[in-house]
């Protein structure tokens, strides 16, 4: 157990700092800011700081996994305000899938454009009557000659309106449930595709519905083989498991909560001086500390080739609960500003409140998206505690005993 970095890593950090000091922000660049950033990123890839998991032949820096280096890179890029690895879906999820399951041709075609940001992706898993139940997919793809003909509807596809490709689960085989599903890439820029943005309760429209009406995809755009879509998609989901991203985010939220509590007055005193509130914030601090070091432990074990601990399977739900605890403190501090979509109107010093209201609604999204909290509890109960799976839905409806409700 050692939280200090070895000299090798300290040296790595020093070199990285020197690199950042030299190249970020980009100075004296003739082109647009975007071009300047792109140039910086090319340099960072060259120096093996970015796209570490992508092979060189596709433009990555092809480094062995090293969560310490990832941590150092993340910390130092944050400190410098430099653009690190893009976090959007294409890069976080598609590239690993293509690297594991894709054909050589698929990798060559999709990875470079994805890395440069030219190809933006949207995920097509959920359907109106399926929700988290991916095995209930009803969108079909039929092979006609050398084209898949796709019909059906996807929902909750993030940012599909600005994406070029969709990685979709579609039903290609006659087998029932998840046996008949394939992982198919679909070009969204074609006549058979209609995209409708879904307005969220926050007023934003990040999610989309995507309608396929005889949309087409080349026969060889199935990833991982026909009927293997279920397995391929589970690979992807595993990549959702991030290391410390959420901990940094919580650090920031707690800091902002402290500012809010310091700026708020209650009964003539600073709210932050009230013992009950201080305790609540310390409890949140304790949970963040627990998250950070539990993740360190599990990732250290993985890095050492040991079976990792149970924490990473619980991380999402623990995060959800912690976020909600923060919200409960914040909403009391906001007081009258909790009434407003853009609070602080007409008062000074509490502009930050704007984001708290968004936060208050968005933490519902956290509870719902990426596997609802109840699904997380099933996972913990079944995978961590080894309790039996529910069979309620597995049973044909006619086989379910019924009894009149009292």
């Amino acid at each position: 157990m050692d939280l200090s970095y070895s000299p090798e890593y300290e040296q790595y950090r020093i070199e990285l700092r020197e690199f950042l000091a030299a190249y970020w922000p980009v100075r004296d660049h003739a082109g647009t800011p975007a071009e300047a950033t792109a140039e910086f990123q090319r340099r960072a890839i060259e120096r093996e700081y970015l796209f570490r998991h992508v092979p060189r032949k596709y433009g990555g820096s092809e480094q062995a996994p090293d969560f310490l280096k990832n941590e150092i890179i993340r910390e130092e890029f944050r400190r410098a305000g430099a653009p690190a690895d893009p976090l959007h879906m294409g890069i976080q999820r598609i590239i690993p899938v293509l690297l594991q399951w894709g054909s050589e041709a698929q990798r060559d075609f999709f990875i470079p454009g994805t890395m440069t940001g030219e190809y933006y992706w949207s995920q097509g898993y959920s359907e109106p009557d399926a929700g988290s139940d991916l095995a209930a997919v009803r969108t079909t793809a039929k092979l006609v000659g050398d084209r898949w003909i796709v019909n059906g509807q996807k929902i909750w596809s993030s940012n599909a309106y600005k994406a070029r490709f969709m990685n979709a689960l579609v039903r290609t085989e006659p087998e029932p449930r998840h046996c008949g599903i394939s992982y198919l890439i679909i070009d969204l820029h074609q006549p058979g595709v209609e995209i409708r943005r879904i307005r969220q309760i926050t007023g934003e429209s990040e999610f989309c519905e995507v309608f396929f009406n005889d949309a087409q995809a080349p026969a060889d755009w199935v990833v991982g083989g026909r009927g293997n879509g279920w397995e391929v998609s589970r690979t992807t989901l595993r990549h959702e498991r991030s290391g410390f991203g959420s901990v940094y985010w919580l650090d920031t939220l707690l800091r902002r909560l402290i500012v809010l509590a310091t700026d708020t007055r209650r009964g003539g005193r600073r709210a932050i001086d009230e013992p009950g509130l201080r305790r609540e914030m310390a409890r949140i601090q304790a949970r963040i500390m627990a998250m950070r070091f539990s993740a360190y432990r599990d990732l250290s074990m993985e890095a050492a080739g040991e079976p990792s601990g149970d924490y990473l399977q619980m991380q999402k739900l623990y995060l959800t609960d912690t976020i909600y605890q923060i919200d409960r403190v914040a909403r009391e501090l906001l007081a009258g500003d909790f009434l407003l979509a853009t609070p602080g109107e007409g008062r000074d010093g509490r502009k930050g409140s704007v984001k708290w209201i968004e936060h208050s609604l968005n933490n519902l999204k956290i509870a719902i998206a990426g596997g609802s909290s109840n699904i997380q509890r099933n996972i913990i109960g079944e995978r961590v505690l080894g309790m039996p799976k529910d069979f309620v839905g597995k049973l044909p409806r006619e086989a379910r005993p019924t009894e009149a409700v009292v």
Partner: protein
Amino acid sequence: MNFRLNEEQRQLQHAIRRIVGDPDRHRQRRAVVDGAANYDTTLWCELCEFGTFGIVVPEDLGGSGLKLVELALVAEVLGAAGAPVPFLGQALATIAVLHGGDDDQRARWLPGLASGRISATVALSEDADSWGPADWRIAAADEHITGRKINVPSCEHPYLLIVGLEGGGLGVVESTAPGLQINAMDGIDLTRPLSSVEFDRTPVVVLTHGQAAARRMMDAACVLLAADAFGGASRLLEMTRDYALTRETFGAVLAERQAIKHQLANVALEVEPTRGLFWFAAYAFDDWTERASEAALLAKALTSEVYLESARMCTELHGGIGFTWEFDAHIWLKRAMFDFAWGATPDHLFGRAADLAEW
């Protein structure tokens, strides 16, 4: 002694339910949420015609001489319906004049308030952290006021504004008065928009018994918001129960999953007992005044907290659809946010109740 609704009270709720249950009302609520209208003016007219705001007004002043219990029962139904009408401001303004006006003032305004011919609202808080009489800083000098009030429940054409004044009294400002400016605020609850109001040497009529009336009005605000919260929470629970009975995932409807059944049972467990609480608070307002403030504070604090927690859980149980604008759940979620924060948050109200109890 009995603690149940009498036949008239049941008929009152039934009548209001019939009014708000019209499919046109649902369409209009959606239109308001989508920004196509500010209020449901048809509903407003129907409520006025029904005599809603005359409920607590004496018969000789054009009302029906009933009590806050009856008004709270209406508030419950409107809360369940998510009704986009400026009920709160009108009701509180009426109560303010009723309890604060001298004979002339009551005669001048109450008949109009009761019929809805005079629309009105209340302008109380001056900053985000305070609501009550002790915090009001706008002083009436020579029958004029200058200053700013925020989080004022708005109505399309408010004719009267009841303004909280320094010293804890109340003033009446007519909207035609000079030096008055009303600006919309960006409220989170689109069914109950808010405004800020600027006064610049604006003429004011001070209510003769304003200080006593202000305390009564604050109690009534708590009761009416608690009633709204109970109605809204019950409605969301019902919606979610119905959704759980039909929505199928992984081969079973949600309601067949014990975990979800228990989550909804826990929501019901928190919501249902608050009915007795807001009933008592409403009852005490008129008939057990020594306990009125304590009951009002506790009712608003507990019920609005329960409403917000329930709304979150119910929205969550709807999954992705619950997070969409198109689906109605967020209307009540945001009404829950309003009920939570307007007139002071639960923390604040619980604290005041503890002070009242002299612990």
